[in-house]
């Protein structure tokens, strides 16, 4: 007799997904899958729209990282309006966009760490689900909850100052930006009342990192062994190999750190990356062409970024980066749970960069837009908080979008998340008679590490009903449990 376990919906992630686990009579895991059951269809309905609408239209994909979509689309359109492949903008144009992007990174990472993941660290993976959520944090460690909320607020305010609105703004336009930063806005961020100023944010980012390091050292065995599996890693890096979240060349390394994609120009991404469709999920499976479907899949996101880059171009984050790299003796890190570590190093990097940019007079400049010879096609890549984001547009003679292809970060992580689910299911559920809530949460913890953005909305505060159903081969429901 086989059993099928369904975890639906997966909680404390952005969007809606479900997990199915098939077990045989001996309790061995036969197969586990993460299904993405939402269908968005943006690639289709952006067709026929004037191209300059794209950055504003496609960002509606998501309410958590609209800025990433906004900027990736704008970068693709920079190419179309002849402003170069991402580095041809005016200093004000590029730096305003970077500021917007770092603000976005800062708030998104803070959201993920404090609101979505920290409950697992504070209360344990199998802690009481009634308090294992942000409300539980607010009750037991109010200062941590306040910190999370304020860090998000700071990031959001940066986005408002650069894009006009905290969510779904209009700042980036093809070839540049539509506003500069005013002196008042800049001073507010630099010298704002405690805690909303750049200095405090840098120090809080360090605190959050210390908090995780404390957790890591106390739970080293668990963290190191939780869903470890080797994989390829892909991300953008600056031409000199530095971590760059806004622009760069595409690099991939294998599990041992060997370069398997050699700093290519991302305009040619289609020569290197292909996508596969599988019947049970709305999400496609991308892989590196050269290595095929079996071996070519890769991870993106914080873990991948710190594996591909050679150094971090901001002093405090670089120092933390060296400590972090020493854990794996300079080799790529393949520990699922250390994604949180990497994410917090990036949070610190973003805070430092925000600080640095705010002191840059270029932000106050008035030369906002560049245009050149028009092209028919453009690709824009950006490192979104969750990983590499691809936007690719082609326009017709009437300036309407003819074709759009989006490979979003979570899509890139599709195969790794499935691997992680399978791994954890095998290690915690094999041979077990009774499936506990803690076991189910362990599967979710693995997914959560990737901070997947399954669609556009946060429904999840760890309070959504979790349902588990055991079904025999004749589809008779054996047992059903529901928790909330």
């Amino acid at each position: 007799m086989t059993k099928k376990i369904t975890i639906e919906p997966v909680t404390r992630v952005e969007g809606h997904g479900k997990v199915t686990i098939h077990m045989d009579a001996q309790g061995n895991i036969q197969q586990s899958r993460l299904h993405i059951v939402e269908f968005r269809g943006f690639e289709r309905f952006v067709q026929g729209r004037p191209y300059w609408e794209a950055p504003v239209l496609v960002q509606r994909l998501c309410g958590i990282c609209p800025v990433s979509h906004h900027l990736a689309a704008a970068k693709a359109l920079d190419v179309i309006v002849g402003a170069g492949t991402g580095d041809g903008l005016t200093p004000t144009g590029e730096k305003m966009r970077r500021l917007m992007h770092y603000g976005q990174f800062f708030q998104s990472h803070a959201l993920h760490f404090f609101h979505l993941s920290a409950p697992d660290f504070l209360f344990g993976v199998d802690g009481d689900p009634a308090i294992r959520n942000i409300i539980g944090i607010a009750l037991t460690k109010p200062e941590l909850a306040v910190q999370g909320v304020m860090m998000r607020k700071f990031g959001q305010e940066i986005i408002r100052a650069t894009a006009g609105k905290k969510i779904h703004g209009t700042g980036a336009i093809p070839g540049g930006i539509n506003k500069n930063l005013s002196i008042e806005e800049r001073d507010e961020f630099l010298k704002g009342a405690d805690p909303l100023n750049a200095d405090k944010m840098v120090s809080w980012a360090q605190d959050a990192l210390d908090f995780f390091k404390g957790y890591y050292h106390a739970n080293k065995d668990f963290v190191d062994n939780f869903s470890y599996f080797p994989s390829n890693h892909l991300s953008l890096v600056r031409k000199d190999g530095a971590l760059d979240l806004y622009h760069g060349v595409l690099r991939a390394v294998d599990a041992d750190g060997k370069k398997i994609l050699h700093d290519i120009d991302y305009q040619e991404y289609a020569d290197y990356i292909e996508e596969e469709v599988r019947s049970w999920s709305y999400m496609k499976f991308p892989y590196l062409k050269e290595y095929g479907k079996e071996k070519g899949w890769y991870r993106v996101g914080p873990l991948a970024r710190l594996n591909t880059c050679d150094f971090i171009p901001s002093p405090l984050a670089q120092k933390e980066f060296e400590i972090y790299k020493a854990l794996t003796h300079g080799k790529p890190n393949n520990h699922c749970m250390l994604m949180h570590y990497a994410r917090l190093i990036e949070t610190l990097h973003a805070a430092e960069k925000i600080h640095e940019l705010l002191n840059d007079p270029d932000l106050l400049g008035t030369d906002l837009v560049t245009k050149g010879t028009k092209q028919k096609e453009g690709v824009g890549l950006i490192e979104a908080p969750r990983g590499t984001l691809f936007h690719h547009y082609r326009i017709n003679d009437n300036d309407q979008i003819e074709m759009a292809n989006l490979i979003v970060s979570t899509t890139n992580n599709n195969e790794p998340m499935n691997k992680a689910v399978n791994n954890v299911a095998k290690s915690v559920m094999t041979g077990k008679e009774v499936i506990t809530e803690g076991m189910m949460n362990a599967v979710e913890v693995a997914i959560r590490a990737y901070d997947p953005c399954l669609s556009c909305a946060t429904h999840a505060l760890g309070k959504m009903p979790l349902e588990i159903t055991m079904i025999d081969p004749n589809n008779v429901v054996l047992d059903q449990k529901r928790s909330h």
Partner: protein
Amino acid sequence: MSNLIKFKIDGVECMAEGGKFIVEAAAENGIYIPTLCNMKGVKPKGACRICSVRINGRLMTSCTTPVTDGMEIESESEEIRELRRSIVELLFVSGNHFCPACEKSGSCELQALGYYYQMMVPRFPYEFPQKGVDATSSKIIKDQNRCIFCKRCIKTIKDEEGRSFFAFRNRGHRTEVVLDPVMAEKMDDATAQLAMENCPVGSILVKEKGFDKPIGTRKFDKQPIGSDIKL
């Protein structure tokens, strides 16, 4: 100013030159009556009905009715407000008005009226009509999804010889405002820009120009429509 007459709007004593249309007379007295199809300097048509008021028990459009001595006008009663809100909602359901990705969002008169009448969601079912986008002209994109048939472009966008660039096509609910393809080739940048500005919604868009006005600086970002008239 010997021609001054007295009239009342919602019981408020007003004065204006006799023969003026009610909308203008009201504006001179600091009273805002919403309009969509009406434009200063253009012969009024009374098409959109949003400026409807009640005079002597009858519904009249205040953009086409001249004010007369002793006239008593009812404009802000609950009934009239409800009627105007219905009209705004009808315009929203009979087209495809997706504000989020629209260039005119923040400068759109229809959107501003939606806010003004605190429309949450239309009471009428959306029709989701299938409408096209005409992008064949080199200067302008005409997005039929957003057109509200106010006729402002037809009446104001003309060449030196007085010929309109825009015209109606088809009848009834299949009506469309289209750009004459031959005339469109002769359109200059200033005319294209004027056409976009005169369009109360986002149906006429100048090509390659979008979102360059940041949020916060758009027409209705800071204050609701009619604020420039209201006392």
